[in-house]
């Protein structure tokens, strides 16, 4: 049951991420003929909204280091996700093995392991 549940949950997550790509229609180009953006970052939209509400506001601090291009920035985001996912995978691997060894010890105590046949 638990196994199915996890798979169902993961499928639901994938659907939640994939469905908007289908459902949301690309808005028409705006008055200047610039193609409209779709799936832009919410953080950027908020920045634009600040510009609308307070047109006089000037940001008073610049990022110290800015990724040189979109590619570099996705490299760093991928690195961030990979570091995290790598560690979680390592930990789960350790946990699974620990559990197996724990069970194996009980099992092997009863019947010593058979040598695999050499073909």
């Amino acid at each position, binding site marked *: 049951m638990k196994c199915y549940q996890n798979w169902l*949950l993961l499928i639901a997550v994938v659907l939640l991420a994939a469905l908007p*790509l289908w459902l949301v229609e690309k808005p028409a180009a705006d008055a200047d003929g610039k193609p409209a953006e779709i*799936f832009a*970052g919410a953080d950027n939209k908020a920045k634009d909204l600040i510009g609308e*509400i307070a047109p006089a506001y000037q*940001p*008073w601090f610049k990022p110290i280091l800015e990724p040189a291009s979109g590619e570099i920035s996705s490299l760093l985001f991928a690195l961030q996700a990979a570091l995290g*996912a790598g560690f*979680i995978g390592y930990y789960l691997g350790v946990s699974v093995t620990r559990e197996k060894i724990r069970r194996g010890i009980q099992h092997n105590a009863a019947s010593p392991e058979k040598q695999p046949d050499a073909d």
Partner: protein
Amino acid sequence: MHIMEGFLPFAHAVGWTLASAPFVAYGLHAVKKRIRDKPEQRMLLGVAAAFSFVLSALKLPSVTGSCSHPTGTGLGALLFGPAAMAPIGAVVLLFQALLLAHGGLTTLGANLFSMAIVGPFAAAAIFRLARGIKCSFAVSVFLAASLADLLTYVTTSAQLAWAFPDPIGGFTASFAKFAGIFALTQIPLAISEGLLTVVIFNALARFNPQELQDMKLLPPQELRA
């Protein structure tokens, strides 16, 4: 939820930094004490940080036609208590602020407050409440993680509305606008975060029941539920 570098007025930036600092300091103290008392939980602390690293790097599309990302703070808040997530959140946010120009040093305090303080404390409170009214473990985890995620973005909207009230409608009108960007976009992502947190808890409950029991998250009879 990352307010961009320089996009909070000076007074707000200082105010949120001062508001967040004690949480980070206390959180560091709490984490150190926890690791000293139970060194075997060090790896699990790493998992909590790693989970937040992964989730906050995933920018997912949402039904509103914009992209945003989950926060991943619910897991750590339930495992180690909400205070522990403040220093962990600080590491994640600093990484993004310094290397990615995503968020910023001047807005670090405000971003910390929404992601690493409001979110985790909400998660812990909602989890207790849900367990109190006899929700199952999985449902409680789901509610805690997803509502914490959503409340993080509501907090960001409120922070921005406070800093930039609408010239006509004031705070309320401005809050409605920012929440329209952040909170609405976040609803499906918050659900995703809730589901993913349940998945990782299932894995932990399966392979590390002892740890969860030590943390008093699971009563013994529910270990193998």
